[in-house]
């Protein structure tokens, strides 16, 4: 265990950051805001993104070398958790964890300097275009159908990626492509010729995209990394995104359980609060257990991320493990919270639905519980 993490000063700072992020989120991102943005053109608010930048949170994870604040995942988790508690629809994990971390993990200093500084400033919202399966039981981190191939006029990028977030108003993509037998990583602006973004509406009112690269011409300067370095940089950011998505899922779990408990305590049927019925009590307990399992594993996962030099396989195993637990628990809480509420839990005007829909989205994103368990099994076999 990283002794840093037990460092009292850091603990205090993290607590303060969590409190201020919570205060900010409740004030600046009330549920009415999330509600209002559902189904809107981009599904989120660039103005709000600017406020995140003002808080310094768009650069929280980015190292000082690139004008960021060089904070750890524990700190980032405090911000991510606060925003998730308010179901803020902004693509914080997709852009500020997943995409930013791929970029930061790679070695193209010019591109890093340029992109990361814009990200810190809140001017650039990037996404990662990596996934080629539309559906199915496993995830595959290697690119196959999207290819970067040499032509007479230069390198050309062709193929389609799915499940890219943000699904609209994304400024550019970190793209994983097959080059020869290697994985390569490219930066492709959204407005590059040949890029076609098809937004796909998601359950929670945000969107993801299927991005078609139709012979997009690439310049060497756009290459972030290639070969083992590319796979290492991408895998690391993917693992980090898994953990931070689990942070969001835990925040959702907590709100759903709290809403449900509050309802159980106050809703009266047959002359008693329904929370006095033992069958419902025991089901609520099972939800608590899942939430606390998520929370316990997540603590260890965050420590491991902050303890940067952990074994790669251990890190990936841990990341898949927490995403599996957080996703399953998130969906269980979503379903059971509706059930324990009864009819009202199924109405749109009751806020529970906002959390249920977000839990659906996040449990599926980056690979659901089953896909993560299968990845875990593969990794466990490698490391036996």
């Amino acid at each position, binding site marked *: 265990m990283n002794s840093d993490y037990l460092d009292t000063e850091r603990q205090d700072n993290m607590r303060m950051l969590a409190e201020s992020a919570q205060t900010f989120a409740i004030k600046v991102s009330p549920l009415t805001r999330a509600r209002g943005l559902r189904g809107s053109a981009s599904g989120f608010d660039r103005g709000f993104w600017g406020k995140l930048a003002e808080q310094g949170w768009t650069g929280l994870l980015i190292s000082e070398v690139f004008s960021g604040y060089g904070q750890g995942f524990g700190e980032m988790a405090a911000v991510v958790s606060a925003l998730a508690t308010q179901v803020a629809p902004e693509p914080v994990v997709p852009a500020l964890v997943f995409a930013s971390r791929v970029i930061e993990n790679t070695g193209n200093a010019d591109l890093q300097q340029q992109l990361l500084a814009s990200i810190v400033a809140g001017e650039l919202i990037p996404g990662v275009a990596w996934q080629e399966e539309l559906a199915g039981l496993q995830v595959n981190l290697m690119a196959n159908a999207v290819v970067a191939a040499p032509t007479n006029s230069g390198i050309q990028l062709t193929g389609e990626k799915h499940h890219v977030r943000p699904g609209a108003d994304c400024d550019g993509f970190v793209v994983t492509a097959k080059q020869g037998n290697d994985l390569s990583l490219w930066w492709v602006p959204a407005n590059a010729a040949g890029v076609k973004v098809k937004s796909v509406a998601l359950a929670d009112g945000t969107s993801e995209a299927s991005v078609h690269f139709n012979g997009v011409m690439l310049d060497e300067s756009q290459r972030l990394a290639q070969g083992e370095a590319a796979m290492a940089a991408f895998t690391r950011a993917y693992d980090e995104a898994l953990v931070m998505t689990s942070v969001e899922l835990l925040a959702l779990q907590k709100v759903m359980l709290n809403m449900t408990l509050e309802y159980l305590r106050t809703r009266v049927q047959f002359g008693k609060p329904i929370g006095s019925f033992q069958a419902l009590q025991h089901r609520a307990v099972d939800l608590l257990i899942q939430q606390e399992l998520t929370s316990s594993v997540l603590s260890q996962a965050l420590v491991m991320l902050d303890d940067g030099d952990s074994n790669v396989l251990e890190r990936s195993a841990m990341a898949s493990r927490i995403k599996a637990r957080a996703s399953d628990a998130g969906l269980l809480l979503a*379903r059971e919270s509706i059930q324990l509420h009864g*009819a009202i839990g199924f109405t749109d005007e009751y806020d529970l639905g906002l959390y249920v829909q977000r839990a659906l989205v996040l449990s599926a*994103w980056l690979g659901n519980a*089953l896909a993560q368990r299968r990845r875990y099994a593969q990794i466990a076999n490698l490391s036996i």
Partner: protein
Amino acid sequence: MSTNQTTDWNALDTDTFRQTVRAFFEQNYPAEMRYPKTRLRWAEIKDWYMTLSKKGWVAPSWPQVHGGMGLSPEKLIVFIEEQERWGVGRAPDMGITMIGPLLIQYGSEEQQQKYLPKIIQGENIWCQGYSEPNAGSDLASLRTDAVEDGDDFIINGQKTWTTLAQDATHIFLLARTDKTVKKQEGISFLLADFTTPGITVRPIRNIAGHEEFCEVFFENVRVPKANLVGGLNQGWGIAKALLGFERIFLGSPKQSQYALSRVEEAAHALGLFGDQGFVDRYTQLQLDVADLSALYVRFVEQVKRGEKLGPDVSMLKVWAAETFSRLANLLVEITGGSGAVAGDIEVNGKKIDVLTSFYNARPATIYGGSSEIQRNILAASVLQLRS
């Protein structure tokens, strides 16, 4: 009566009757409306309702004298099986299945003459006003009250979870007419026309984006005493009496079979039948559905023999709804990264609708007596476990 009701359907042998019904559905029900994902609105289903009405088939369970088909339970089950088989959408049918039979049993002759023909003819669409914000599972706690005033009752209160009230012209409701007696004993059964001043209908949007339910507000709504069904304060008994063998349909395997087909289609499109992990789980659910059908058949046989359904039929609803829910979970799971896409996805040329089953599975375990209430009934009345 819209048509001459003279055929003795019950005299037909089952197969002939089944073929007759099947042929009519196949020839007349609009193909594009088969297996609707959600409840159809009146505007969508009206033509079909009128087709049935003209055929004389809109009220299969009613006596022929009132314009029904006069089907025995056995034949009625065949009729409904064929509807389900062909994926015939359900019209707003509270008039046909609830208030019609109730008026036939408890209504005055005036009430029967005034209301029954208009149900048959599709002129009146009824909805049911039972649940209230604070009277769901515990229905007897309802607070909407009806105060006698000369020849009228004056109704005040609020109903909720009223299915498709926005399409209805009339509502039948339970209201409190005596606050001084035990909860169940002070309730009356009333009818109201939605054109009566003081009634407001507000649709409730659900998380799937549909407006299947409504709130109905009553503010000094004056209805004539002629709208009282049965005696004053007899409403509770009347409402309960309506729970006949139709309860069996709450446990129909239809929804689960439909969801299983969706899983099967998706699995074929995704090539999952070569994945033993999927196949194991699929087979388990496939057998859960098959065994649900066996349980269903058992209760159907009971109905066909003319026996009354006991409280044990609740187990059918529990297993049906929960099997459906597990199938919906599996569909979300196997669609992986697309597990939260609103609307269809297209894989290998096949369209997969991921979330409709997930959303539909939520009310399945809540409405019509939640799984918890059904388990309470089974524990008390079948297992003799007292609270």
